[in-house]
């Protein structure tokens, strides 16, 4: 199960980064990515990449909430 999570994490992170790279590439190198010809498709591709990266982080490390919050409230 842990191995599967690790594989899923790496795959999602790679897919996330790749989507963002392609989306930005479509902006910077017009004509190189004919399937991303409209602005909305480019934005969608980048958004998909960000979500996929997030999913990869969650597969790898679970929720980051414990280090984001200082837990002071939980003791009150």
């Amino acid at each position, binding site marked *: 199960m842990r191995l599967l999570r690790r594989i899923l994490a790496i795959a999602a992170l790679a897919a996330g*980064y790749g989507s963002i790279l392609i989306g930005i590439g479509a902006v910077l190198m017009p004509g190189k990515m004919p399937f991303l010809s409209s602005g909305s498709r480019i934005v969608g591709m980048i958004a998909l990449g*960000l979500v996929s990266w997030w999913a990869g982080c969650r597969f790898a490390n679970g929720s980051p909430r414990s280090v984001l919050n*200082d837990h*002071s409230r939980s003791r009150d």
Partner: protein
Amino acid sequence: MDLLLLILVAHPFAASLLWTSYGLVYLLSSRKTGSRNQEPDFDYSVIIPFHDEPDGALKTAWSLVTVCPQPQEIVLVDDGSAHGMPEDAKLPPGTRLLRLDRNGGKARALNAALRTLKTEIVVCLDADTTAISTDWQGMLGRFRDPAVGAISGKIWPVTRRGATQRLQQLDYASVIGLIKAAETTWGCLMTVSGAFVAFRRSALQAIGGWRETTATEDIDASWRLQSAGWRLGYDYRWIASVEMVPTLFGLWRQRRRWSMGMGRTMRDHFVSTLKPGACQVPVAILSSLNIVWVVLTLICAMTLVAPALGAPHPVSDDLVPTSGALLEYLLASAVLFGAQFLCAAAIQGRPLRTYAVLILVAPLYPLYFWGILYSSFLTGFPRGFLRQDLGRWRRTQRLSDPLRQEADA
């Protein structure tokens, strides 16, 4: 070929977009935190290692007297200084001086102090660091999660003169803090800030303490902790100031040392990223891509320079950017990196007027990047990758150094 070209052109933008987006997520998530109580969570101790910098170490120790809750103990570790702490130096209450007989490096000094401490949390400060935050309760509260192994504080850069220090301030304000914030939302850190960090003592003991044969004990400890499954985080409300390096050469040497440490860490701990339970997968992937990008830019530069040296033109003309494409690239850079700067400024939490001077030096940032960061990486990373460090203290240059050298003469 197209993939490599894509990475070459778009990687800095992709990395910036990831940091900015998740920096915003960090900002929104961490503000949800509730009110803080004043009851101490854990006892903690402070270690301040130094070498030939007794005044700085004393100043750092005295900056802790207003901190709440107070540390159980402050340990000043003199790592074989030629100019050590004077016998009559006035130490803050609860401070102990530990003298080591020879210069064995920062990691050895930290390990020597760690062996004498009993508290569960150990805070490490460099001798050029001054605590700004007086409420350390929030930082201590994060250790209530038993998986948290270390919390990195926010470094606020202190500048006194010159563009060199201003550029570092820009770097800290718009890049370094933002990256740590974004990485925290990913559940890992590339590295804690060795100048201002709190560790869980049992986590450090579990990995055998700081390693003494690396140029950067903080990067090494960060990767080993995360390989062992410990979580690291960044607390943007736990703040200390650090004096920036005053000269270009001093800065280049500091950054080369960081790159050497990175090279060593990648060599020794990259494979452990694949171990079940290791936390640093996202930063390991992004670090690898950064290295790929550096290599690609080097190859690109060589192929562009080759014709000038009489070699046949190795790239086709349609790969050479037109002036229109370059303008578009610059415009996209200004938009995205401007957004990154604004997001980073929001995380820093200072009024925007604080950044007015930084906007003036911002056009110099490309020179700083290529002249200092890039070149120091090119020389430092392979050196660290291939060679073990001697474990000697390399003091970062300070503004007061020329004055002291004159006094010694």
